């Protein structure tokens, strides 16, 4: 995954709230066909990529992303916006031939990214886990069942149905 791609996703989101959302958005966009090429494994909270986490950290350290930390009762929540330096660089890059090409490949996923940025993070987590199991070769009912068991979720709830809907949209 390139620096530009990550920055573009943050730009689409405006303010990207929580690292969990960042992780699941990249995973779901990639699963939907966006050429991001990030390596994912399954962690407690669903698909997780160390590469993405470290890219975020690198861009933050270099002042390309602005990180804010809020303390909540259940822990810290990080949110990300683009620094002005990044905004300027994206603008310039997207007028160059190689930037135009890269932007062209990303653009079809802009609306999906914006929709994901507004979703409940828990829904992203469970939806991404369903997609993860499905991509591992499980058929649809198996992927749902495995996700339910992995995330300790009740069957036939509105929440699970929303997550399934999200996963179906991604894999459509």
């Amino acid at each position, binding site marked *: 995954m390139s*620096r530009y791609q990550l920055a573009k996703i943050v730009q689409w989101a405006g303010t990207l709230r929580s690292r969990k959302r960042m992780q699941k958005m990249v995973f779901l966009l990639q699963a939907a066909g966006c050429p991001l090429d990030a390596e994912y494994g399954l962690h407690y909270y669903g698909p997780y990529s160390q590469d993405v986490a*470290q890219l975020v950290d690198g*861009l933050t350290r270099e002042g390309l992303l602005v990180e804010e930390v809020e303390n909540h009762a259940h822990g810290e*929540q990080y949110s990300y916006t683009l620094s002005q330096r*990044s905004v300027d660089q994206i603008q310039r890059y997207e007028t160059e031939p190689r930037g135009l090409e890269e932007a062209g490949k990303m653009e079809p996923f802009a609306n999906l990214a914006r929709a994901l940025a507004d979703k409940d993070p828990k829904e992203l987590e469970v939806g991404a886990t369903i997609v993860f199991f499905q991509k*591992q070769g499980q058929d649809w009912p198996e992927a749902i069942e495995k996700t339910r068991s992995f995330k300790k979720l009740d069957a036939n709830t509105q929440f699970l149905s929303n997550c399934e809907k999200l996963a179906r949209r991604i894999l459509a």
Partner: protein
Amino acid sequence: MSAKIIRDPLYNYVSIDRKRDEWLLELLDCAEFQRLRRIHQLGVSYLTYPGADHNRLSHSLGVLHVMQQVLGRLRQSYDDAQVDGARAPLLAAALIHDIGHGPFSHLFESCFGIDHEQWSIKITTSEETGAFRALRKFAPWLPRAVGELIDPSNEDHPSWQKYLLSSQLDVDRIDYLRRDSLFTGADYGHFDWYRLINTLEFFENDQSGRDIVWPEKSVLAIEEYIFSRYYMYQNVYLHKTTRGFEKIVEAVWERARYLFENGSDVNLIPAIRDFWQAAHPSVSQFLAIEEFTVLQQVQNWTSNPDKALSDLARRFLARKPLAMIEAPDFSGLLTPDYAEWEAALRERVGAHSEFDPPEMYIRADLVKAKHNEPYFPEQDKEEQSVPNAIRIKIDGERVPVEISKLRPRLRPLTDKPLSRIRYYVPKEVQNEARKLRDEWILPR
């Protein structure tokens, strides 16, 4: 004799109880495991460190030994059926976790496009192998259980079992850091491993069942282990000369594959030809490729009519590594133009007619951030970003605390590392390439 005793330079004796674990001896004797004797543990590091001639088999026996010690410790502290039930799969997985490595360990993963963990799983669960038969002799379910334990994406086993085998402080790392240090002579692999394996405990977690944790008294030993890992990465695993040899090997195989796919006769040894021609190579086709096979193949290529292939093959056998230069400093740029820089480097190297085609002589080396960092701390409680982090049980705390929260001294080693790209070029043009890099103007 009630025990099979094997001499080992790290533990003195590795011992297997003949009565209780006869099946394990059979596993040890199977052809696929014995093949590990012929695989260098550290790939081509022996070209940098002449002592690094140790193999995957001795490491695997070491991992078995450490696992035996850990299970003995848990059994003493927790007299329960869970530990007993997990004993056979954990011992077997410890012994054969690397059974799917190819020639020169990780090095040929990139040359042949293979993933050693996937081959370990295939060898373990394929009915045609001796490893499968030895495991099945113990119990019909054992091959599958071992395969699942080795599989990093499988979540069907209790997390404490996966943790012991594959985490940021597991039996594999404990052995290889110490063993690689001993054999390279790079004296950095010292830490109080005996304390680590004798103080670990279970923690009952609401979410994932049992976890492995350490008491507060072990934090210094853990800190020492993390520093040791850092020093070993800097001095041995990422050694620039070793990487220079690895880059040559990769170039040799890339060139040969290119020629092969374009119809040239590259005089392939049958085992390699079969592997390359198979759409889905079988276990036996994979196992037929040995270090001596690939070395003989490289030797054959020294007289190949393709100038680049024969030159690169000769350079490797004559111990002439590619030389390293750092990339231009692209930090602070969102869209670093590596392609433009590489094109300029190609032009510079290509001006020398002996380096043709130049791309075979310019090798990028991406050192991922995860290889630059000896330990990944948990970054935010909200997301528990690193499930296999090292956790400490503190008196009075409800949940274990991740080690970096307790030891700020670790921060310089773990705080937001960066990936970096280095380049390898022939020694003859290293200075020219450096000059080009120094004069490279970056947009700001």
